[in-house]
């Protein structure tokens, strides 16, 4: 680690190049491995050879955020001010208030930023604006806050363009790739329900014709896992194409389609009775709908008012469908 002397003491010089370890770390975080402790120490860092006139870019101390910023700014001379957001990305931390006015002002002071740079301008990501009140930062620290771009990839072009962001740099997108990178963590979170939801259901469904069938139990577990993948992967993938505005509707439709395909794959009406088919369609649609609804938390366009309405309308339907499936399975055991 190289240190650069400044008026406010030595500042760590960091590289803009990501190592194999950084790439592996990001991959692990995407899969939820040690994600909550994937952090870097907050404070001031130097990229390249910045001086008192170099721009100051502000980010969160989630290591993936920090890595993306330093990679984008490689080959430039900039100061990087990392805020303590407890390992949370800029947007979520702004929502929580940790990427916020108070922390920014505190960090400016503790890093001695006014002694390191002679200008009074900070560059923040637009997604941080939900937590940072620019006029208060200006009033209390003297630093002007400039909300630059939404995506870090656009920051270099914005810097070159005299800090003028084009319309495209200020408009959110949610491309297939942007959606897909978010799905692993959804799968990991949802698969835990195999234990507390799918297993009891499979045990119940396993009773057939007065005896217990292991094949039936395993089939239910597999069908449940398929419906989880339907809600956590297929729905995000085909989010713009699936009909319905509510995520739960998109999920239910996808889950229903999946259940009918599974029905056909398992041998159709010759092998599967009507009660089993009905239970399958109900459970798989409800499970897929639930995890599709959960994806609202990963999208950058669902409002809390909308999500509240969606939950109020769809959760009772999902619960009813699941309860009806259980009743069907119980009746099936009671009336062979």
């Amino acid at each position, binding site marked *: 680690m190289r240190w650069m002397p400044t008026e406010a003491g030595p500042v760590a010089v960091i590289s803009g190049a990501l190592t194999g370890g950084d790439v592996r770390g990001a991959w692990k975080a995407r899969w939820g491995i040690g994600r909550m402790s994937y952090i870097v120490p907050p404070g001031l860092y130097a990229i390249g050879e910045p001086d008192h006139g170099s721009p100051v870019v502000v980010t969160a101390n989630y290591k993936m955020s920090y890595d993306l910023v330093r990679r984008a700014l490689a080959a430039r001379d900039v100061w990087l001010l990392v805020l303590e957001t407890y390992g949370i990305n800029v947007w979520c931390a702004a929502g929580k208030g940790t990427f916020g006015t108070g922390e920014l002002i505190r960090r400016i002071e503790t890093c001695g930023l006014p002694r390191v740079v002679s200008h009074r301008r900070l560059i923040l990501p637009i*997604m941080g604006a*939900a937590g940072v009140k*620019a*006029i208060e930062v200006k009033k209390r620290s003297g630093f002007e806050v400039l909300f630059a771009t939404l995506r870090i990839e656009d920051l270099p072009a914005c810097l070159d363009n005299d800090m003028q962001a084009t319309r495209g740099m200020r*408009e959110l997108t949610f491309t297939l790739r942007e959606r897909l990178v978010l799905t692993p963590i959804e799968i990991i*979170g949802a698969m835990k329900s195999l234990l507390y939801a799918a297993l009891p259901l499979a045990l119940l469904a396993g009773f057939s014709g007065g005896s217990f069938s292991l094949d039936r139990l395993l089939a239910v577990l597999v069908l449940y896992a398929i419906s989880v993948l339907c809600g956590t992967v297929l729905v995000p993938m085909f989010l713009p194409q699936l009909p319905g505005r509510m995520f739960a509707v998109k999920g239910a439709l996808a889950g229903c389609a999946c259940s009918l395909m599974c029905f056909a794959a398992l041998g159709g009406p010759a092998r599967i009775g009507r009660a089993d088919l009905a239970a399958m369609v109900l459970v798989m649609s409800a499970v897929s709908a639930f995890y599709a609804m959960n994806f609202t938390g990963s999208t950058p366009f669902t409002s809390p008012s*909308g999500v509240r309405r969606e939950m109020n309308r769809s959760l009772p339907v999902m619960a009813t469908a699941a309860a009806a499936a259980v009743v069907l399975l119980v009746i099936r055991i009671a009336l062979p």
Partner: protein
Amino acid sequence: MRGFDYLPGVATLELDREACIGCGICPTVCPHLVLEMQGPKAAVIDRDECMECGACALNCPVKAIRVDAGVGCAGGMLNQWLAGFNIRLRNDGSCC
């Protein structure tokens, strides 16, 4: 957002054009281009695009914007609701 529509008619965003002083900060912080300068004052272009992040209301120097800001996350809301019944699921970091 282009290519995506969420539930219409639910966003709580309100702009008081009388109070607006036309500083121009709200259009620069809105990630969905919901607000735009029209003449000397800001205007709401498409309320249904609003995701209620609250950046505009927080940054408005004269409190001319009102919005019930929050994060539109079903998992978070569900956890909050369960916490009301004293049921706490272990936070394993599957949600931000």
